[in-house]
Structures are given as C-alpha cells and as structure tokens.
C-alpha cells in the first residue's frame, strides 16, 4: 500500500505557474503562462473530472549559481484535488501535482547536471474568501538519474502568499487583489519578497509583480 501511495505521488508533478486553482471543471481547459526575467513557463491542463487534471508543461530557466546553464523542462503532469472545503463564504483546497518529463541542459560542459529524465512533485494548499486569500505551495524537481558526487535535485521552491481584496466585486466587474508573496528556493537560498497585483475579469486572470531585486513577473491564466 505504501509503495502504491509513493508510486502515485511520484507520478504527480507541480503546476508551477498555477497560482489559482490548477484543476478546472469537468471537461474544462486551463491555459497558464508565467514570464519573469529568470524563467518562462507555459502550461495547458484538461480536467476530465472536477477533482483532477491532465496537463503538459514547458519551462525555460536561465542559468543560476546552481544550474550554471540554460535548462528546458518539458513534462506531462497530473493534478489532483485531494480535498475541497466548500463553506458559505469561503473555499479551501489541497492539491497534489506531479509527473515525469525531460530536462535539457544546453551547456552540459559547465553545468552541474546532465540532460535526462526528471520528475516533479508538489503540494498546494489554499484558502480564500472574497476578501482574504492565502496559499502555501511546495515544488521539487529531481533528475531520475543520480550521480554519487552530485545531488539529483534540480531545484525546489517554497511559496507563501497572503492576499487582500481592497473592494468586493461581482463576476462581471474587475476583481483586484494585493498579494504579498514570500518565496525561498535552492537557487538563491534566501527569502524573496514579491509584492503582486492580481486582476480577475470574467474567465481571465493576470498577475503583475516585482521583487526588491528588480525582477519582474507576469502571469496569465484563462479557462475555456
């Protein structure tokens, strides 16, 4: 049983750009993109059921102190809504993500890693009302092939978000959020504070952000 659970978790991968709910409705599609000065990512997810989604991700990262090379990650993934709490004026969710893929390091001569198969694992928990939004998220990317002299960990990242809606808007009005994103990862080994603005309108979501190191972020998501 433990092996079964571990196998299931092992095939789950994380949808990094999805700061909103990563699984949509039965028969629905989600398209998500994330762009920043460090990386860009595009993901499409199809949800056969409301509690799980099947997706494909393409991610490109610039060299970091650990990676030493450009890297392109292409992966398939499964997103599973483990539990949802529907309350009168709030909703809480726990998601698991994961899947296998291929990591291509463009400059293997200088990189600490060799190109090859990798897997993602992730966990997300969120809770939101129409006024307050919180989210916790952890993601880890590891190569399947391990090297005795080098860890197979490509990178991991931990995010915590706290958001506030300055006004309450209805569906056909512009919804705005002010979010404080705290991030730590293996690449920079410090806590990065990322003030973020989020806008919802109908089935479109945009996020604009900039950290105190001058890095800009643009996220976009839609469902159809």
């Amino acid at each position, binding site marked *: 049983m433990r092996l079964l659970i571990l196998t299931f978790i092992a095939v789950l991968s994380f949808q990094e750009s999805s700061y909103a709910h990563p699984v949509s*409705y039965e028969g*629905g599609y989600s398209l998500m993109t994330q762009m920043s000065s460090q990386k860009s990512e595009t993901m499409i997810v199809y949800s056969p059921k409301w509690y799980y989604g099947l997706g494909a991700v393409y991610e490109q990262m610039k060299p970091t102190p650990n990676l030493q090379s450009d890297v392109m990650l292409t992966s398939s993934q499964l997103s599973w809504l483990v539990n949802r709490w529907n309350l009168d004026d*709030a909703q809480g969710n726990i998601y698991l993500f994961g899947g296998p893929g291929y990591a291509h390091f463009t400059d293997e001569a200088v990189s600490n890693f060799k190109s090859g198969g990798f897997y993602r694992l992730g966990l997300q928990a969120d809770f939101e009302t129409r006024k307050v939004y919180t989210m916790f998220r952890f993601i880890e990317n590891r190569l399947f092939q391990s090297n005795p002299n080098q860890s197979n960990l490509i990178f991991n990242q931990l995010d915590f978000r706290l958001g506030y809606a300055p006004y309450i808007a209805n569906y056909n009005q512009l919804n705005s959020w002010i979010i404080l994103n705290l991030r730590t990862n293996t690449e920079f080994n410090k806590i990065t504070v990322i003030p973020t603005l989020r806008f*919802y309108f109908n089935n479109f979501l945009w996020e604009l952000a900039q950290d105190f190191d001058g890095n800009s972020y643009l996220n976009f998501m839609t469902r159809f």
Partner: protein
Amino acid sequence: MNSKKTSITLKSKTNLNLNLIFSILAMFAVIKPVLAVEKLNKDKLTPEVKKTEVADAVKSESQNIITKEATVKGMVCAFCVDTLKKVFSKQKEVETVQLDLDTKKLTLTFKANQNMDDSKIKKLIKSSGYDVMTITESRINL
C-alpha cells in the same frame, strides 16, 4: 278511331318523358347545392385542420416558464462563476443562466414547458466542484 287512340298514347308518353326529365332536373337542382355546401363544410373542417388548430390553441394558452434558484456553497471567485455559467449554459433545457457572487445564487430560467430535476442541478453543481444549500422553484404561466 285507331289513329285518335295512337295520338293519345303518344301524347301521354311524351308527358311522361317530360315529367321524368323535369323530375331529374329538379333533383339535380336540389342535390347539387346540398352537395356543394357539404363539400365546403368538409373542406373547412377536416379532422387534421381541427387537430392542429386545437393543439395550437392549447399550446398558446399553456406556456409554462420555470425558474429555479440554487444557493451555491463555495462560490467565491470569478472562476467559480464562470465554471457554473459554462456548465449550465450547455444544458438543452436551459434558456438563461444568471449568477451572483454577492448572494451566491445561481438562477436558471428554462425554455418554455421545460424543466430540470433538482437532483440533476445538484449533480451538475457537485461535478463542477461546489455544493448546494437550497433550490427553490417558481413558475410563470404565459
């Protein structure tokens, strides 16, 4: 004498023939208009025409417009609203879908003389990832 008798016989035969002709003409004169009226009535009141007219009359007199209102648990964002709007708009019975984030209400107006079971509404909301608190129904007869 004989010639006189023959003449009388011929005269009576001629009268008989004339009477017969007049009788036939009279019969036509009476029957034709009767048949014509009958044909006219038959054309106007064929069973098919009557059936259609009656059906149309019934239909036009009993157009039922049903509206159902569901209170949805967990609907907190624009994506939630969009999800429910898409799911219910695809249903053939549904004419319009209205959602209100403030009141958490999903209002469904159905096509004339059509309806949807509460169990189906609950199932569709559940399969969209939300829960239902209440469902109420109202009818308008047009």
